[in-house]
């Protein structure tokens, strides 16, 4: 059984990721848009730590599967999870967990490594599903390198920016004090 503050924190971060899905920049020639979701995943990992961050992302994905318009650009339904962008969504959960475990306050290098690993997990999950879908259902015969150009390369600049934004945000004084407050709760 979760404690009350764990439940409410997980759901507020699920809602934040949902909000991030509305900040949406479509890119030409790839079905995957750039969104602010990953920024909130990084922050959930930095503020909540691995377990709760993963929980919040799981809640987010579940929310979308139940039909609420919380996926990128207001999409909804369990169909999205099996669509071209579904792999990215599913990878949010392990990515948040790993980032939360690796990142540590006051250890900038370790924190940046954790966030980068999370991004790589999201890329891997997303591109894998995109590649499999393109080759089976769409029958396009997409090579793996082509899948990388569709599913990874266009997003590297945006994600680098978001990692730095999240890193800077986590070092701001107000968020630092939140983290202290939360660690007091846990202790």
């Amino acid at each position: 059984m979760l404690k009350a503050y764990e439940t409410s924190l997980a759901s507020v971060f699920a809602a934040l990721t949902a909000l991030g899905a509305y900040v949406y920049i479509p890119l030409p020639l790839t079905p995957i848009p750039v969104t602010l979701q990953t920024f909130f995943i990084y922050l959930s990992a930095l503020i909540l730590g691995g377990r709760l961050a993963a929980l919040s992302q799981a809640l987010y994905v579940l929310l979308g599967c139940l039909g609420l318009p919380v996926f990128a650009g207001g999409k909804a339904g369990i169909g999205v999870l099996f669509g071209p962008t579904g792999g990215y969504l599913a990878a949010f959960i392990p990515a948040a967990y790993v980032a939360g475990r690796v990142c540590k306050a006051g250890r900038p290098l370790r924190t940046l490594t954790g966030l980068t690993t999370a991004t790589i997990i999201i890329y891997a999950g997303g591109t894998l599903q995109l590649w499999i879908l393109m080759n089976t259902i769409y029958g396009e015969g997409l090579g793996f390198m082509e899948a990388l150009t569709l599913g990874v390369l266009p997003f590297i600049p945006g994600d680098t920016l978001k990692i730095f934004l999240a890193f800077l945000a986590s070092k701001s004084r107000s968020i630092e004090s939140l983290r202290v407050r939360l660690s007091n709760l846990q202790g």
Partner: protein
Amino acid sequence: MMACKGFIFKKGETSLHRLDPRVKFLISLSFVVCSLLYEELLVLAILALAMVPLALKGGVFREWLSALKGLSFLALLIFAINLAFIFFGSGKPWDFPVAMALRFIVVVSAFSLFFLVTSPDEFGLALQQSRIPFDVVFALTMAFRFVPVLALEVQSIADAQRSKGLELDSGNFLMRVKRRIPLLIPLIVSSVKRSLEIAEAMEARGYGSGRPRTSMYKLNFKRVDLAVTLLTLTLLTLTVLLRLYLPTPAFKPF
């Protein structure tokens, strides 16, 4: 955030409101399944039009339309992307972009209709009685209610920062990104604080006391619910069968 309005429950006493939430979900889901099975413009148009009498019946037509308006930009985007794909030689027929935009509208507006006539409490009750653990149900309904609240929060933070002289709408792309930071940090801080306050309220009401929870209301499946369920299932089976036995292009669900 226009689309958000089309997902917030509107109180009413219509026959649609009185249906069991599980039945309503089945209806919305059937719309989604049907729209994913077909990529013909005609079928998708029929599906979209079939929702109009339902929205009228539930007395939520205006709200439903506002959801559609909020979605129109994204629908146009989907249309444009598919049109571009045709130019790059995807070999699709010319009505395909319209059909895809329409499919998007059918999927999202079907869910919008469901949430317009189902109160969050009913929704939670339906989840709970489908044997999903209470923790999960509670967290889900809470997250669901947080989304519009936080959306409003962003607006007021933006207004507050503007009044302090933050220029949000000028400068080049990187400048604009940089100027969004003063929106994000207060948003995160205020939402974490809010959630801690909620946690205190939850504890004050005995959350996590460990004893099994009872609920005041029970959903009961009435005869009307059964009739509507059977009707929906019949229609759904018919559409699926039609799809299987009519000669149409290769199956592509997405």
